[in-house]
């Protein structure tokens, strides 16, 4: 192949190795990132993607190997150095200040000064407007970050990264918190950036995105580079095989047929201003999917059912009788369980051990005698559930923050499975976790349903909703716009109801 046909190489990673105490995170990794391309990076959690990105962004230094920027050797000394070189990273966890404005967040530490060296707010807003206009982003420079949606904040992060005139933009699972609609918007921006000649490294777990946006795909596994190719030359299953080293038999286990009794019903349930007049029934053994865009009120509905928010009007019935659920404690004692959307904020006790994270809900119901915890019995129960869910952890005493996202999610599921719930509410149960853990969780959900647990599953991933649910209820801006049976539902009519 002649050099002329090759697009210009922006960043080269040559034989990079990085080890941490006890684990080799990267082993002899070589990759090329070309100008004006979107390069997707796929791999399970723990495959080394994040470590590699941190090296490229100047957070870590490689133990061996080198980086070359436009052909010249590059030795990054700090994240700041990387930014000045033209490499910006948008982290999975957003690093923005929620009480400051869009403009202040973008230019923090680099604010324009006036003659007496004070910050000029006028200039600050002007240059922010210019930047946002250049990127075709519809954001108010003066808006406080906390007033924006997660998607909006993500756009601010992107604007911030590009304000450094970066040539290489690393996006670490940018769509994990975005609805399909916002994802489309993000893709449009990514394509626009590509046309401007920028390079994008796009880390994702989602196969659809990879095919939709990437010009090149590299797969990593166990700290090694498995291969790189154009998406057109690859199939979904090939990529997954490269990621996991084996083929997954099926994506979604078929849910069993059910005709159980109604265990939960909501009647004209309303929580102003989040949702209005929502009525539905949930049967034992049923998986009821809840689809909708971000902001459709799905999570608020779940919170209301679980007693975290008090409905303004309407009725909740459990087992045919009106239930007053004014606290999670009340919900728990009625056999309800709730795996929340945000693992870090409302799920995990990050400082506490895996065991303490598992047992906490159960302690309200069992294994306590005169206030004293029956330690060995509860430990045995927790160990059994951890094994059942295949939680990868050296033991139950390690802090949960040392586990990967997928394993943390399994622990949270385990916490609620331990109370043997009759009704299980799942809010984005597989967000941001790797393919294997995801498949395991899907199988588990189906098996729980087969045993008679009623499951309400909120998800922003259409394939997940379509593949798993018996029925799908679709919400749009706080209203229930339709309930579809498994047979009627397809991506088109679900999205139609969600965006009407």
């Amino acid at each position, binding site marked *: 192949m002649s050099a002329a046909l090759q697009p210009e190489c922006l960043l080269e990673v040559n034989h990079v190795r990085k080890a941490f105490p006890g684990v080799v995170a990267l082993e002899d990794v070589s990759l090329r990132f070309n100008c004006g391309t979107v390069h997707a990076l796929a791999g399970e959690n723990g495959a080394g993607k994040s470590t590699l990105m941190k090296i490229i962004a100047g957070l870590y230094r490689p133990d061996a190997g080198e980086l070359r920027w436009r052909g010249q050797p590059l030795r990054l000394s700090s994240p700041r150095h990387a930014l000045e070189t033209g490499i910006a990273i948008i982290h999975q966890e957003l690093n923005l200040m929620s009480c400051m404005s869009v403009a202040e967040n973008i230019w923090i530490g680099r604010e324009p000064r006036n003659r007496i060296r004070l910050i000029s707010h006028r200039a600050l807003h002007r240059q922010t407007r210019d930047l946002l206009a250049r990127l075709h982003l519809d954001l108010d420079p003066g808006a406080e970050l906390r007033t924006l949606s997660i998607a909006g904040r993500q756009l601010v992060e992107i604007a911030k990264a590009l304000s450094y005139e970066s040539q290489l933009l690393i996006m670490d699972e940018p769509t994990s918190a975005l609805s399909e609609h916002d994802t489309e918007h993000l893709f449009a921006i990514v394509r626009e950036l590509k046309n401007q000649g920028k390079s994008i490294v796009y880390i994702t777990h989602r196969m659809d995105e990879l095919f939709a946006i990437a010009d090149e795909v590299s797969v990593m596994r166990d700290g090694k580079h498995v291969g790189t190719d154009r998406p057109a030359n690859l199939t979904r299953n090939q990529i997954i095989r490269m990621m996991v080293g084996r083929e997954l038999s099926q994506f979604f286990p078929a849910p069993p047929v059910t005709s159980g009794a109604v265990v939960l019903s909501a009647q004209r349930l309303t929580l102003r201003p989040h949702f209005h007049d929502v009525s539905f029934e949930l049967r034992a053994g049923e998986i009821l999917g809840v689809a909708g865009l971000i902001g459709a009120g799905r999570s608020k509905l779940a919170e209301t059912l679980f007693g975290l928010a008090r409905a303004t009007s309407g009725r909740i019935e459990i087992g045919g009788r009106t239930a007053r659920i004014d606290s999670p*404690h009340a919900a728990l004692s009625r056999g309800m369980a709730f795996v929340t959307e945000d693992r870090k904020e409302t799920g995990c006790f*990050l400082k506490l051990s895996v065991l303490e994270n598992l047992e906490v809900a159960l302690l309200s119901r069992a294994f306590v005698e005169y206030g004293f915890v029956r330690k060995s019995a509860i430990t045995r129960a927790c160990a059994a559930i951890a094994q059942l869910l295949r939680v990868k952890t050296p033991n139950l005493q390690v802090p949960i923050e040392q586990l990967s996202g997928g394993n943390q999610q399994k622990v949270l599921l385990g916490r609620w499975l331990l109370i043997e719930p009759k009704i299980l509410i799942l809010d984005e149960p597989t967000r941001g976790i790797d393919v294997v853990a995801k498949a395991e969780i899907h199988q588990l959900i189906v098996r729980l349903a087969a045993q008679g647990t009623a499951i309400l599953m909120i998800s922003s991933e259409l394939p997940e909703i379509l593949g798993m649910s018996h029925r799908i209820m679709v919400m749009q801006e706080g209203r229930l716009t339709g309930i579809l049976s498994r047979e009627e539902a397809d991506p088109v009519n679900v999205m139609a109801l969600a965006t009407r």
Partner: protein
Amino acid sequence: MSWRSPPVSRMATIDKPDLSQSLDSHRARGNAADRARHWPAEASILLVLLGLALAFELLGWIFVKQSFLFNEQRLVVMILQVSVIGIIAVGVTQVILTAGIDLSSGSVVALTAMVSASLAQSSDAVRAIYPSLTDLPVVVPVLVGLAVGALAGLLNGTLIAWTSIPPFIATLGVMVSARGLAKWYTHGQPVSMLTDRYADIGSGAVPVVIFLATALIFHVALRYTRYGKFTYAIGANPQAARVSGIRVAKHLILVYTLAGTLSGLAGVVTSARAESGQSGMGMMYELDAIAAAVIGGTSLSGGVGRITGTVIGTLILGVVTSGFTFLRIDAYYQEIVKGAIIVAAVIADQYRQRARIRGV
């Protein structure tokens, strides 16, 4: 009986293949690292305590020509003078575990000392506060003292749980008001001439016994009861605690009430030891107690800490105070060094936390 058999039997049918694989494959590698991690955090603080004691021992032989440690009387005094701080610190540790703070302890000590002393006066008292209520059985002033402390704690807890104002502000308010109440109670006059039975509570090594017993009770409560588990959970993540079905507000009120009760107990011991109640008692005790907890490894951000650490932290304060007195070093230097020790303890704690996050 709320116990029942583990709910695993039903679940066990879910998944059979290579169940134990993931756990087992990590076990071999995990063990060495675990042992290092399982080395309790208190071990390092205990080393600091021993190091300080040995340093004073050495300096003693050099400058004072006598032993610092091998002097029974000095050892008793050493613990005695920090027993009251220790009792408060046991309560404050629990408050800090919930990511809170209690600034009111010192003032509650004063208020309790006044109230319980006023009910502990002997009939010999010249101008008793309640002339008709002298020579009461010793349980009366003690129980009333504990109740006063509990009420102050209840007020703290209720303010924090119901209005969700920061604990710093709520307990700051109670700190100022309780001190005012203590002064108002007798218009600033000390309460003296207490019964011998009451004074016995503060005599000899009794305060030390009370301190250690309190520490033991709450050590057990934090480690082996649901109360303890929920306390750590709330401190580690209050939102997750609520979602997990913990009644967070109720629990916080309980924790602050217990801390108040322990301040009340400290007030009883203080007044018994001084054989009087004075509105200036317990000044700055809250800060010493917080210092003891923090030196002992309790993290101000909540969720991390143990009573054993707090006991060692209290003893470190005692050793430093005794040691400096023993070396006849100015009291001014004592305070300077105490401040440095507190800051050093927190810095050490930060390093430990960072190491924990890195998983080293």
